[in-house]
């Protein structure tokens, strides 16, 4: 049926102004260059968190959650998120995660990259500040140490438990000449095997791998999620809390690889563990490592799609920190980077 109408349509297509279908709103228009696949109006509607108000969880608005007692004992250093989780972002995430529209992956990785760069600068500034005049992590309010440190010290003087006893920024890494913070390894919040088969992908892993390949930072699975046998809804509150505690476990092979990388970069944490066999059985031989020269903490960036209460991130960070610390006497700093902050 090569009729005149299809010919006309073809001509109209050829003559119409250039445009592609926007991934998110479906309208045909010229797409923006900065973000893959979306149009100008969608790009402008992204609710970026340019300046987090809460330095702990990266929320754009004041955060009562982080003032709670239990947050003082959290296991991660801080969280940063790219966007606020509003209705539009909820729809995007639903399209990607639940419907499986994987064209969104590229867009979300780009967005995550944006906030990662922002995070690098922010933390880099802080590192410089700490290193220049406060070698023993004593924070002073000094105009010369930079904006972020000033802000931080101000915040801390007001609510002194916002940044708690988590070992923070032990040193300026020799490897990074410029003041850009860079984690040793990127990892992601795992999903269970059942969910992975059902969905076909782990959104956090896709984000982590995308980010890792952009910045040439190794991405490793350090955690596994245990299967749930019973449904959450049949459990009591205490059972739920307990089950949340035991949801995550370390991914042995991934952790070994991360350790071997760490060793190759910074040398052995101590003289006691030079053989591979002992490395792989670090649980039993863990205390062989002495604290003669306190090893540098391993900096781990944990990726997830959304930060809601922080309990998932915290549970993951706790497992990582405890395993590394109890097993190897190696300190770990877990930083969290999520796409959205609800």
């Amino acid at each position, binding site marked *: 049926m090569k009729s005149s109408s299809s010919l006309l349509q073809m001509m109209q297509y050829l003559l119409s102004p250039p445009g592609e279908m926007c991934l998110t709103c479906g309208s045909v228009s010229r797409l923006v260059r900065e973000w893959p696949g979306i149009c100008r109006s969608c790009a402008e509607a992204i609710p970026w968190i340019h300046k987090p108000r809460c330095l702990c969880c990266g929320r754009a608005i004041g955060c009562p959650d982080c003032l709670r007692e239990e947050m003082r004992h959290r296991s991660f250093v801080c969280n940063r998120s790219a966007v606020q989780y509003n209705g539009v972002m909820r729809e995007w995430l639903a399209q990607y995660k639940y419907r499986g529209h994987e*064209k969104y992956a590229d867009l979300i990785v780009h967005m995550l990259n944006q906030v990662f760069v922002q995070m690098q600068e922010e933390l880099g500034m802080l590192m410089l500040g700490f290193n220049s005049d406060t070698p023993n992590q004593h924070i002073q309010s000094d105009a010369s140490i930079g904006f972020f440190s000033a802000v931080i010290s101000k915040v801390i003087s007001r609510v002194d438990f916002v940044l708690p006893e988590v070992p923070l920024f032990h040193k300026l890494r020799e490897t990074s000449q410029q003041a850009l913070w860079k984690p040793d390894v990127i990892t992601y919040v795992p999903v269970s095997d059942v969910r*992975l088969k059902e969905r076909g992908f782990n959104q956090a892993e896709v984000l982590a791998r995308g980010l890792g390949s952009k910045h040439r930072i190794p991405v490793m699975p350090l955690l596994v999620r245990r299967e749930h046998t019973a449904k959450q809804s049949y459990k009591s509150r205490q059972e739920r809390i307990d089950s949340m505690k035991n949801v995550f476990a370390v991914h042995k092979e991934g952790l070994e690889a991360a350790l071997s990388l760490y060793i190759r970069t910074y040398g052995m944490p101590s003289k006691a563990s030079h053989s591979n066999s002992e490395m792989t059985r670090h649980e039993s031989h863990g205390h062989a490592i002495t604290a003669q020269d306190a090893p540098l903490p391993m900096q781990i960036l944990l990726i997830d799609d959304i930060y809601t209460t922080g309990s998932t991130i915290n549970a993951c960070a706790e497992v990582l920190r405890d395993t590394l610390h109890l097993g190897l006497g190696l300190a770990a700093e877990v930083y969290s980077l999520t796409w959205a902050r609800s």
Partner: protein
Amino acid sequence: MRVAVYAIRQGQRWRMKISLDLRIDIVWWEYVSRNTGMDGTMVLLSGDMPLGWACKAAKDFVGAPEMVHWKMQQWKGWLEAELREEMEREQTDGDRPRAEKNGWTSVDGERHDARTKGSLRGMKARGRGVWNSFEPKDHDGAAWGGLKAKGYDRSARGGFKDTGYGGAVRNGLNPKGNDGSARDGFNSMGNDRKVGDGCSGMWRWELGEPLAPAVWQELIRQPEEGQCAGDVRDSAVLVELAEQAAQLVDRLHGRSLLATEVDSLLSDRAPGLASAWHSPAQLAYLQGQLALDAGVAAAGPRKWPRGTLRASRGQAPRCRRCGSEATGRTACAACGLAACAYCEACLALGRSRACSLLLRTAADPAVRGTAGESTAAVAGRWGLSAAQGDAAWAALGFLAEPPQGGSAAGGRTGWMRPRWGAARRSGTSTAPSRFLLWAVTGAGKTEMIFPLLDSVLAVGGRVLVATPRRDVVLELAPRLAKAFSGVRIVTLYGGSTERWESGALTLATTHQLMRFYHAFDLVVIDELDAFPYHNDPMLAYAAQHACKPDGKFVYLSATPPRPLQREVSRGTLPHAKVPVRYHGHPLPVPKRIAMRSVEICLRQPKLLGPLAAELRRSIDRGAQIFLFVSRIRHIGPLVEILRHRFKDTAVEGTSSEDSGRGEKVMAFRKKDIRLLVTTTILERGVTVPRSDVYILDADSSLFDEASLVQMAGRAGRSSEDPAGRVIFASSQWTLSQKLAVNQIKAMNRIAGKHGYLKEQPSKS
């Protein structure tokens, strides 16, 4: 998901089957060979292969007698040749991200990335039960990474060996590394023994002979997820399985569902079956009652270039559920491929991908409706007007015709013409017959379909009424329930609670059609030309699949799309026209007033003079006024100007962006609003007694013939005021306007000729 694939011989005949539970197959074929007395051979080609590959192999398989003598190596060679394209793609797609990373300066990143991908795979594999106990993780990992030997070479130099991953290094350095990764796709469970003849994980079993150890092991293994937990050699278990299979087939009757949808359906309708339906499904598949397929059909064979660009490009994979081209390809944890195709067009109903299982049932032959005795009898029984009765009677005659006798089957052009041969490929060679009920706006289409539905329901057929909009479904449901009180009616729309119910009469929105396969004897499609049907090949495909191959289609439309109109005038499409409204008065013929475009008029409100004069006449005669504009942005300013000009009249504007639309339409109906400025969103389905219609910028390209006729159809619908006024205000007299006016006049002329009119149409 991953499945097993095997070849089976019975006598001289070879076939290829896929399996969700190989234990069932072993027991089944042993039983068949014992009962028929035929000898046979079962050759397991792979116990664990991506579903998409398995379906392709099974589909393309052509048996040959010499296969009896084939060695395992030959079977393997055949399989590799069959899947060469898939494996090549897997290579290239697996390498693509790698090629990016090869640019990295950091050896660490690359090495660890490869390593972690490997362990990801290892992790996944562990979940698969006993197979994995003899699966060396490192090898699997290396294969998954799709690594080039070069890459590993470097990582080995980078000191990988020191950290104790000798296995990975060894594999990477293995010159057969690529080969291994390809093979991994369909035989990951036997990697440990692949060094030998390369045929591990495959076995051959002559039916009737004692079970070989490998077969035996297969039979007594632990059941996997979704499989029946009992011992399938036990006859009691088999009887139960057979019952479950029958139940499953019954539940899935006329359905086309992905595995996840089956999960949902069963947990809703048959919880006993929900946890372990793979084994009964396999049994039903062997019995020939259930078709197992991949959600996305593999790409067609790459044709050798024949000079044209199209032929050399090869065919893209196609979604079996919606018929669209599956454009997306991503790494998939469910089947383990790096480039598993998925369909982006029908994501809203759950993702259809190359490794997701699509279950469809075999169709019964369609039943035929009974022809009406006479026009008068049909009209009398259903309370129809003469014009409605005639059309319904013609349609009843069509329903009573034998399937392919109608000239419509395989019509040359038109809406239901299967595009790209999609229907042919999916196995439906004959298209259902089609009938067009071309009824003018306000003719009373709904009443007319009642006799049609009744004639098919009366002989035990299943009927589907599909409409484009959810509110139409909700409005129609009670009317149908009243007319067919003894019939089980299911209403389906996004979020409907009756999602998995089945009844004789189904009322659904268009997208729900994709969940059906050869289910209905009669499919009635309302407002064929309305969005979302219009120009959407996906919904056309879905509608065609929902209907039995020898079933019937009835289209309802006031403004059929051009291709169908052409078929009507050519005489290739059986149809009936209802050229008159139920009240027997002619359609109001649009009158044109010349006016500058709204854009200019808004700047110089003086130019609205001629329009204002007409509006004044309408207001004075007490009519409700629809004022259609082409752009939402015109509504606000125009409402302001009109309010200023007609101070005594309530003027409002509404559009798709207006959340208070429903209330405004209600107020308009109640005459609280006299003049409503709106866009084409109100072109259909709104009936307001005593109304006049004004269409500004009628020459706009946004208004085609169909929407002009639809908008004009808002006027004069009630019998109290049958002669509403329709005004086209435009600066140019375009083809669309001309065609719309011609169509309306032609309908009035036909009505007059048949004597349906109570009065002669006024010449305008």
